[in-house]
């Protein structure tokens, strides 16, 4: 500490560097915050629903939110998205953990092949499969008015390919733990539930969180599968339409209000679980 103090007092250069960094970071933060502040201001603006040339509203109001729930299908969209997100969080987490455990802990014929196959499949652009996915869902009758179960199915079905981060985490749990338990007569299934699962809490939370958040932002699949049936939209598809040329002058502040309602719970959840997110992301990036 004393050394640190000496160093600080000695070097005026160090102080200027720090001041520059503070200024830089503050400017950065302001730039990063502007769109969100703008969003909040617009959501509560009362004098008109179109875009205006000033930032701070002249009249503050809740009308936009009331309009959302009384005059539009926003409530439906919100509920749809919430249901999808909830189911997706459960199904996707189960699937990802199963795949990750099998590929991390067990050695079987075809394991390498399977991993390479999923790697190659991941290189195809997601859209390529969209049209066929649509027809397959249609075969099961899960489009338009039944789009909610259809979307849950689509999200969950392909989630097995996103096992990398969870597998990377399982890889770091020492294998000797499994082996000790297996010598004591525990089956693989028991090892999975009793030993690995309790240790995998951070990655389970990370997976649940990502699986819950993803459906809120999905536009491409949802727009295709819900096509032509407004009540089945999710929030992204519903709100997107309000910013096109015909609607924007009547719906701009409504869009902002809706966007705010979507953002608040997601952001709150994200911030609360930030620690796990950082762990998952850095772990995933470093180990590939």
């Amino acid at each position, binding site marked *: 500490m004393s050394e640190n103090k000496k160093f600080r007092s000695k070097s005026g250069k*160090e102080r200027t560097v720090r001041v520059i*960094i503070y200024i830089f*970071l503050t400017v*950065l933060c302001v730039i*990063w*915050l502007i*769109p969100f502040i*703008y*969003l909040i201001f617009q959501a509560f603006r009362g004098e008109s629903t179109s*875009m*205006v*040339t*000033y930032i701070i509203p002249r009249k503050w109001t809740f009308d936009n939110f009331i309009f959302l729930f009384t005059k539009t299908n926003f409530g439906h969209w919100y509920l749809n998205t919430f249901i999808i997100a909830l189911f997706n969080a459960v199904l996707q987490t189960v*699937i990802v953990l*199963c795949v990750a455990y*099998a590929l991390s802990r067990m050695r079987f014929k075809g394991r390498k092949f399977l991993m390479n196959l*999923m790697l190659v*499949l991941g*290189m*195809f652009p*997601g*859209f*390529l*499969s969209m*049209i*066929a996915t649509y*027809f*397959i869902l249609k075969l099961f009758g899960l489009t338009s008015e039944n789009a909610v179960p259809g979307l849950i199915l*689509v999200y969950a*079905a*392909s*989630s097995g*390919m996103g096992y990398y981060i969870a597998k*990377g985490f399982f*890889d*770091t749990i*020492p*294998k000797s733990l499994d082996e000790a338990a297996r010598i004591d007569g525990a*089956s*693989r*299934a028991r090892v999975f539930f009793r030993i690995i699962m309790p240790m995998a809490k951070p990655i389970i939370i990370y997976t649940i969180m990502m699986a819950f958040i993803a459906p809120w*932002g999905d*536009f*491409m699949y949802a*727009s295709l599968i819900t096509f032509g049936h407004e009540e089945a939209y999710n929030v*992204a598809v519903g709100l*997107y339409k309000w*910013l096109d040329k015909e609607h924007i002058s009547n719906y*701009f502040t409504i869009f*902002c209000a809706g*966007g705010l309602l*979507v*953002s608040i719970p997601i*952001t709150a959840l*994200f911030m609360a679980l930030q620690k796990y997110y*950082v762990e998952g992301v*850095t772990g995933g*990036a*470093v180990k*590939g």
Partner: protein
Amino acid sequence: MSKLSELEYLGLPPAKRKLHDIGQFFARLPGNLLHFLKKIPLGIWRCLCAVGRFFAGIGHIFADGDWKTRVSFLVMGFGQFFRRQIGRGIIFLGMEGLFIWFMSMFGFGYLAGMKDLGTQATVKTLNDYGLEVVTYKDNSLKILHGVLTIFIVIGFLWTWYINIKQNYTAQKLIEKGVRPKSFRNDIKSLADEQYYKTLLAVPLLGITIFTIIPIFFMILIAFTNYDYSHLPPDKLFGWVGLDNFQTMLATDASGSDKFAYTFREILIWTLIWALIATFSNYFLGMFVAICINRKGIRFKKVFRTILVMTIAVPQFVSLLLVSKMFADDGIVNSVLMNWGWITEKIKFWTTQDMARIMVLVVNLWVGIPYLMLIATGVLMNIPADLYESAKIDGASGFRQFTKITLPYMLFVTGPYLLTSFTANINNFNVIYLLTAGAPKTMAYEGGAGGTDLLITWLYTLTVTNNDYKIAAVIGILVFIVVAVISLIVYNVSPAMKNEEDFQ
């Protein structure tokens, strides 16, 4: 950096050793690349050998098997019934029965339909009142049924192979005097030695139905003329061979090369975009991380939290809003004009160059926080003694960055750089939500615009233009681009190979 002998290497302090490793990695890159290219023919040869061995194995089973095993080649599960594995036998026999029923009822019809995808789409007849009635006959989308049938056949062949193999194994066990596993043991092992089968069954079924089959379907579509003028159920589409690829890469049927031109231009922009977007985010994100994590800087958590908010807010809200903020009559232009800084509106999205710069800049807004998080994690792990010794040697801050921080970061996050490069090639959200590909230009075919990436063009072609055949071709070409880049990098970088090292 020259290669040290083992003794010299071990004599180095651990920190320097790490640095040496990193230097060696970059020095070996070109060699590894060459090595990889040499490996391709070898890999193909090995593949062929494996296929050969597979069929030889089947032949061997038939030659070496007893009569029960041989009958099982035709009647699945036959051998199992005689070897006290009745449970397995019933399953195999049942599957064969089901398969035969399916194929005779539907399967062969579907497969036959694949040949010309239907001959007559609709029949118009007059009903009793003299009104025209349209009856739908063939539908080219039956191709999907054909694809499903193909996968069922493949699945059946695989089951058949397992069946004969199990017969053979059981036969050998009995010859040795061991009793093959009973059905109850089979079930039990699904929770133990074969637990992976239990774990992977559902996920793999999902991937097969919703990823593999659709991709296979779209690859087939690339060889048909399925587009807006051949939409079922009113019209039929059929096989056209490699015509679509020719349209895309050279000239189309009418001799115009507009599609090829558009494709080339968009491919180049996609690669430029991916390169700049990846590296600008990478370096600026790292820079911000270094600033925030610098010794003596306070409010680290506040800065970090504010930046991370962009990750949390759903992109369709934040990006759509940003795109409207920079619109011609958006808030940015208005405020700048109110302040008297500009007199004419800046056309952020309506000229190609400006729009391209804007998407790259806004992408920084999206990407920097993410990189900042990753870089923070990695920076913490750099051994502190590296910096200590550098300081003693009198290295400046900049030199420390280029000689220690940067190589270390690149070494550790190499695989991430690759994934983020390929993710940027397919970065739909940023482009579509910001510009939707605009500004559109007449120079491009297929509704493409100045900021369109291949992936957003693919979207426009499918959803807006219904030009499925061309979309399928683009999808395949995107795959080839991504696959080639990934294959090379995966094979060259060491981090991907040593999977077992972590455990």
